[in-house]
């Protein structure tokens, strides 16, 4: 690029210089030709001045007879003016009156015979100032130009022309002007006809010869001049300029042309060397400037950008401590500042993420429960310390492996594999806790009872990317559970006998006549009886719950008619209802038969429970039973007009030990609060549902349960 610039500078400089040289040469040409023209103008004026000389005039007019004056004059004048080569005075008859030429002096009073002179004479006699073109005069054989002016008789009116003065220009005068020119260039003066009449070249072989080429070119319009001509014969390039003669003032000249020819090597050598010099000087300067600019650019722009790029590469690899140096206050500087700020933010965010991640990891590691996380392909991605302890598999052994190879869960009952729920967490996005009775087979083959649950891990878009499985050793729990159960069972069992006895003997006492006479005693014994009965009920409920929870009750399912059972249960509460003065009705029993599939004794138990609760709660109004037939079920509802159940308490209804305080407050009969819970277990075990249909404080309650209907006729 620099070379191109340099070459360009060089060429332009060279051309400019060459143009200058060309112009100068042209100028010189014009100056020279002007000089010639002015010189010739001098002759033009000079000849007229001579013509005006009084002595010459008076001699010609005859006023002065003595010729000595004129002759003297004719000898002086060629040197005083001109210079003239030849100077003649010719009268109107054509006789040479005076002449500076010796020849003429010898041929006294001869008639002028020279053609050229005669031409001049002819013209001047008319009264015009005459000048010729360049010619070789026959008089002297020398190159010259002839000027002539008319001589007038000043003393006579009209000033008649009485003679002519003719002068031949001393050609060397003109020659000198040309010859004095700078010899490095060729100065050639041509007539319009193409004749070379003066040159500054020493070997002037073409002098006074006609050059046809020049003649041709002179006939062309002047603007064609100033071309660089190639001299074919001489084989070099030359700068040629042409200046045409335009005369001077009244002297119009002969339209001579002055050619200046300078060989290009000489003409332009200075130009080229100057151009070279300029370039040689300029180039270092330009280079220096460029260098400085580059330096500035680099430090101000390129380096900061390179810096930023380098730093961003470092950051991309993960080192967030790298920063860009801010060098300037401009936009680049701002970029650097922003970049650093952004990096700092990223570092902070990454820090926070790392801290949180570590916290989470620590949390999971410190959990007492075992945690396993798997990806969608079932490969283990997380395995905490508790899991390693429990299973015997180290974390490093399991990461990346399919969970089925590591976490072996089987059902206690039939030893069948029990890990479907984990797979389903991923495929079906369901959360599932496995029921008890799952065994974990450890790495060493031993077995531990566990409780486990699996849940899918779902990202913000709703896609599953894995599952989390939590499991724990429940052996101790089971142990505790068993202890509790056993304790309750044993205790309850043990309590039954004493209770039976208390109850039984109280009953006997109450029948005794002596007791009945004493009201107070009766009252006391009645209390003993009632409460032992109540206690009995509680104990039985405990045992019931235990049994039902272990789901080992074989339900005695049979087809039976619900209707008589209903009547039976209601009958038990008749006296109670009458005593309390509340109604007890059965509604809408659409048929007199309703076959169901259930355990009769248990259905009875449930009905007694619900009716009992209803009866106990109601002080005014009453209890009503309703039935609703559904597709495969019969729905039985027990409605009371009691105080209703608040929303809070509704949640605790069917739960173990979640009984409503009101029940206890008003309870006069047996009832441990487990009644609804037991009823729920029983009904559900029989394939039905039990729930609080409707209740609100002050508006009473309705409990409903369903039993499976049967199309069989009765069969017990």
């Amino acid at each position, binding site marked *: 690029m620099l070379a191109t610039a340099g070459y360009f500078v060089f060429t332009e400089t060279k051309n400019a210089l060459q143009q200058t040289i060309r112009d100068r040469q042209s100028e010189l040409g014009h100056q020279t030709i002007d000089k010639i023209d002015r010189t010739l103008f001098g002759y033009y004026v000079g000849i007229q001045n001579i013509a005006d000389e009084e002595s010459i005039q008076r001699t010609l007019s005859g006023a002065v007879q003595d010729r000595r004056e004129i002759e003297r004059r004719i000898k002086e004048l060629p040197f005083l003016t001109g210079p003239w080569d030849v100077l003649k005075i010719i009268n109107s008859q054509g006789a040479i009156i005076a002449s500076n030429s010796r020849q003429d002096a010898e041929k006294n009073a001869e008639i002028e015979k020279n053609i050229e002179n005669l031409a001049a004479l002819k013209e001047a006699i008319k009264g015009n100032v005459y000048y010729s073109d360049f010619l070789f005069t026959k008089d002297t054989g020398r190159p010259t130009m002839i000027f002539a002016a008319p001589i007038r008789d000043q003393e006579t009116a009209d000033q008649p022309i009485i003679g002519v003065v003719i002068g031949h220009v001393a050609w060397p005068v003109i020659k000198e002007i040309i010859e004095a020119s700078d010899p490095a260039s060729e100065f050639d003066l041509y007539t319009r006809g193409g004749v070379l009449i003066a040159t500054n070249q020493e070997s002037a072989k073409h002098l006074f010869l006609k050059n046809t080429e020049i003649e041709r070119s002179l006939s062309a319009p002047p603007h064609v001049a100033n071309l660089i001509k190639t001299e074919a014969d001489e084989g070099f390039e030359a700068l040629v300029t042409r200046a045409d003669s335009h005369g001077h003032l009244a002297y119009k000249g002969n339209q001579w042309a002055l050619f200046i020819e300078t060989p290009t090597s000489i003409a332009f050598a200075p130009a080229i060397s100057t151009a070279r010099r300029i370039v040689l000087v300029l180039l270092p300067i330009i280079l220096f400037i460029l260098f400085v600019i580059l330096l500035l650019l680099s430090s101000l722009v390129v380096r900061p950008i390179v810096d930023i790029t380098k730093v961003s590469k470092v950051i991309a690899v993960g080192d967030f401590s790298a920063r860009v140096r801010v060098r300037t206050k401009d936009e680049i500087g701002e970029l650097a500042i922003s970049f650093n700020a952004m990096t700092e933010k990223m570092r902070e965010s990454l820090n926070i993420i790392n801290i949180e991640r570590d916290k989470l990891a620590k949390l999971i590691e410190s959990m007492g429960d075992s945690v396993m996380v798997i990806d969608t392909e079932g490969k283990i991605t997380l395995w905490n310390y508790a899991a390693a302890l429990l299973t015997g598999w180290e974390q490093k052994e399991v990461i990346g492996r399919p969970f089925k190879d590591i976490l072996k869960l089987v059902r206690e009952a039939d030893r069948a594999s029990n890990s479907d729920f984990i797979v389903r967490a991923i495929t079906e996005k369901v959360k599932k806790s496995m029921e008890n009775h799952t065994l974990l087979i450890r790495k060493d083959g031993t077995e531990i009872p566990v409780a486990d649950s699996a849940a899918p891990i779902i990202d913000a878009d709703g896609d599953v990317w894995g599952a989390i499985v939590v499991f724990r050793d429940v052996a101790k729990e089971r142990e505790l559970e068993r202890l509790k159960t056993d304790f309750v069972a044993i205790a309850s*069992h043990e309590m*039954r*006998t004493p209770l039976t006895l208390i109850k*039984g003997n109280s009953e*006997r006492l109450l029948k005794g006549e002596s007791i009945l006479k004493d009201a107070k005693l009766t009252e006391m014994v009645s209390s003993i009886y009632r409460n032992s009965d109540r206690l*009995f009920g509680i104990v039985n409920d405990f045992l*019931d719950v235990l049994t039902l929870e272990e789901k*080992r009750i*074989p339900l005695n399912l049979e087809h039976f008619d619900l209707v008589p059972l209903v009547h039976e249960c209601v009958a038990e509460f008749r006296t109670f209802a009458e005593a309390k003065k509340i109604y007890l009705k059965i509604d809408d029993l659409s048929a007199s038969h309703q076959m169901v599939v259930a355990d009769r004794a248990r259905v009875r138990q449930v009905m007694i429970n619900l009716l009992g609760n209803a009866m106990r709660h109601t002080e005014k109004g009453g209890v009503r039973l309703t039935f609703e037939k559904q597709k495969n079920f019969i729905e039985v509802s027990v409605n009371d007009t009691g105080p209703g159940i608040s929303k809070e308490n509704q949640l605790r209804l069917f739960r173990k030990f979640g009984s409503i305080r009101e029940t206890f407050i008003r309870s006069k009969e047996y009832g441990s609060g487990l009644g609804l819970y037991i009823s729920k277990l029983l009904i559900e075990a029989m394939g039905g549902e039990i729930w609080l249909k409707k209740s609100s404080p002050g508006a009473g309650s309705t409990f409903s349960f369903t039993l499976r209907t049967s199309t069989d006729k009765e069969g017990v």
Partner: protein
Amino acid sequence: MTMKKRILLVDDEDEILSLYGEVLAEEGFEVLIAHDGAEGVKVAKQEKPDLVLMDLKMPVMDGMDAFMQIHDDPATRAIKVVFLTAFGDPEVVGADIKISEEIGAAGYIRKGITLDELVKKVREYIR
């Protein structure tokens, strides 16, 4: 004089034997007692009562085994055996009727019932 109906009570709890024994006696039954399954079998074989009320959980030999022995022995097969169950005994809860049907016992009586009901049931079974 009509023969009094004879009832054999088999229970490991003395006080149960007294309570039920006295009540039944007051109702006009002749009451025999045994303290465990083995004794119960022996007395049953010896005395051939009209009804046996058999508690289930007993030491030495429990009620079920004792019943089996009585039932297997052709000499005592005809004797009606009624189980005394506690409400909630895991073995028999819900299966009371099945027991009577399948095993051949006459029935069951839950210990928690009132004495009046006890008497009523006994009269039913002994008929």
